[in-house]
């Protein structure tokens, strides 16, 4: 029944600390706080509480666990200790889980409390397994702790000689490049075919006016435009579509990531 390795003690575990809350046995108010510091978050605290049930993690009582956690948090609050938000979020969620577990079956929502409880248990098992694995990993023969490498290796002497390569063309081309770069340059701005946002807005909203059907964004582009104009038109039509959607004049749909974007007039 017991899967054994889940329960083996591991060297870095804090399992050898006395069980129960530090606040009880220490009596000073920051002991609990200090112990909370020792946990790696609420799941870790839950795992620790679950281990104190002294049964296989697959057999733990989630309801008992929830109650222990809530007690713990309550006590921390009574001591006016500062609790990290994630512990409180977990407490709220567990309180919800507890009430759902106590409700009659037919009033239950989806997902069912059984599902939530089982998933919590599965998470705890996984975290427990990894904690166990970490302990066993550190228990192995580590270099520098258990086994040692040669103290002063001579090293393998590899003398690297580099032979450089370059050819005549590369040489002359490099010179040309330098000369060209340092020659006075004349800059000219070329006219590029673009579709402005204004004309895209006009075009898209006019075309939307014609039909109530869904149309792909692609269909709004000028059909015989050369590639670069088409690119510009795609960009500005996309922005135009977003603008029309923002104004409530169109709706946009896309069924999958990177899938075609479709557009329809809002009546």
């Amino acid at each position, binding site marked *: 029944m017991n899967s054994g390795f889940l329960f083996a003690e591991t060297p870095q575990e804090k399992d050898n600390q006395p069980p129960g809350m530090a606040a009880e046995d220490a009596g000073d108010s920051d002991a609990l706080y200090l112990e909370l510091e020792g946990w790696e978050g609420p*799941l870790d605290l839950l795992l620790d509480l679950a281990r104190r049930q002294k049964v296989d993690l697959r057999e733990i009582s989630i309801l008992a666990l929830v109650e222990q956690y809530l007690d713990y948090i309550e006590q921390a609050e009574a001591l006016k200790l500062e609790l990290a938000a994630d512990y409180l979020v977990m407490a709220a969620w567990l309180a919800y889980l507890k009430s759902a577990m106590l409700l009659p079956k037919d009033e239950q929502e989806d997902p069912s409390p059984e599902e939530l409880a089982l998933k919590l248990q599965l998470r705890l098992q*996984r975290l427990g397994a*990894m904690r*166990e694995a*970490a302990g066993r*990993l550190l228990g192995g023969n580590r270099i*520098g702790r*258990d*086994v040692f490498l040669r103290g002063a290796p001579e090293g393998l002497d590899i003398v690297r000689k580099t032979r450089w390569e370059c050819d005549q063309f590369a040489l002359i081309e490099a010179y040309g490049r330098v000369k060209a770069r340092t020659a006075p340059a004349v800059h000219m701005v070329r006219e590029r075919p673009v579709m402005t946002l204004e004309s895209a807005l006009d075009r898209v909203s006019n075309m939307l006016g014609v039909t109530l059907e869904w149309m792909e964004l692609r269909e709004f582009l000028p059909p015989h435009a050369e590639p670069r104009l088409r690119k510009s038109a795609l960009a500005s039509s996309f922005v135009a579509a977003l603008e029309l959607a923002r104004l409530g004049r169109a709706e946009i749909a896309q069924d999958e990531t990177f899938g075609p974007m479709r557009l329809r007039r809002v009546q």
Partner: protein
Amino acid sequence: MNALERSIEGALFAAEDPMSVDALASFLGDIDKSEVRAALKALASLYEGRGIHLVERAKRWHFETAPDLAHLLRKEREQLRRLSRAATEVLAIIAYHEPVSRAEIESIRGVQTSGGTLDVLMEAGWVKIAGRREVPGRPTIYATTPEFLDHFGLSSRRDLPGIAELRATGLLDPVEEAYEELTGDESGPVDDEDNTSRDA
């Protein structure tokens, strides 16, 4: 002891880093790899029971002292930097689940993992970035390095303690998958669980 064994013994002894069969074969002047392998085996058995062992880690070979001499040799050495609990746990999760994204690590631990933790592991040379997962957001994924296996005395990832049992009991599968397995629920995993690694 034959000449090849002598050369390999000398080379591995002098080398500053572990060497693979390939590296040895080409270093010693294009020796046949199967001969190198045979010589390594012969050498390793020669060193059995001795104060020095010849071991293979992540397909690379090196000499190290016998583990039972640790008590003798340790006293002179500086202490290894202690790994924090968080770092140890993250390291274990990466080793047993690799390649794995930060979100996946966090979902197992139930807490955010600070970037510093991963940095410490990468600085130690035990963890490396292993690319990105091809899902939306293209998260970075992490995996362990040969130095990791080296340092922890493992020949390969199959030697990770308990990995076979963990795999067999489904404890390396994401919660959603394990849940479906248990309940026979066919509704399919939710999106983000879908991305979690299914370890090789």
